[in-house]
């Protein structure tokens, strides 16, 4: 049951990315290109998603456990630290360079685009590298 829900959520999320235009890097870059010919569509994606999300997370906060059982795993960290800012900065640069972020690139991968294959492999290497750096003391990027 759980595995089916996760599959279905992934599918629904992917269909949302396609319908919204998020899975098209040209559209993402068009949104980020404020000083060129700007395509504001992605602001509508955020608005639609958050309009639904607000209610869902408000309801989730009032529950101790998930509807299918198991813990309600809501993040508890609140402070804005150096890690968050530097990580988001680096992420944003990569996002702007190719127009891909983790969800949309997996959709493009499923559609069979070679560019998504290249990007996904590099992204996995980047994630693994970050995990390795975080677990290696003395690199100055460990947790904290």
């Amino acid at each position, binding site marked *: 049951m759980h595995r089916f*829900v996760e599959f279905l959520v992934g599918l629904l999320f*992917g269909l949302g990315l396609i319908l919204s235009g998020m899975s098209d890097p040209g559209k993402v870059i068009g949104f980020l290109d404020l000083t060129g010919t700007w395509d504001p569509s992605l602001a509508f994606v955020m608005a639609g998603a958050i309009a639904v999300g607000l209610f869902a997370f408000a309801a989730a906060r009032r529950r101790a456990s998930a509807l299918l059982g198991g813990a309600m795993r809501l993040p508890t960290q609140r402070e804005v630290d150096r890690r968050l800012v530097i990580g*988001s900065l680096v992420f944003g640069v990569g996002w702007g360079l190719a127009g891909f972020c983790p969800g949309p690139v997996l959709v493009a991968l499923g559609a069979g685009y070679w560019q998504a294959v290249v990007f996904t492999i590099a992204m996995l290497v980047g994630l693994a590298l970050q995990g390795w750096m975080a677990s290696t003391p003395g690199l100055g990027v460990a947790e904290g």
Partner: protein
Amino acid sequence: MTLDWTHFTPWASLAGGVLIGLAAALFILLNGRVLGVSGIVSGLVRAQRGDLAWRLAFVAGLLLAPTVWALFVQPREPRIEAGPALLVVAGLLVGWGSGYGSGCTSGHGVCGLSRLSPRALAATLVFMSAGVATVFVVRHLLA
């Protein structure tokens, strides 16, 4: 600033956003998990026993989405301009950055903002600004 009316799709984007929000809603309410793709994928890279199946199920759904979409709607060709070298650099930055910053557009941008989290708001403002600055440099300074 001029608006790109040819590519502007307010209704499809709003509807797609609602689907994205519904997916995030189902995930947190049914399974108690925040829908953050970089977090879900990072758990595949740093595999831990007993923690893989749900991540694989989610990713399988995501990968199958274009196939399911094509059953009903003629897919539009995405505009992918980046060449191989740029894709490698961008992929590395997206992977490393989302790992270090504990989230991406879905975890911080959609779920975090829906939770009214100050951390997610900061992250979203930073990556949006970095994205805008990057596109400005690539499209208008270097081109």
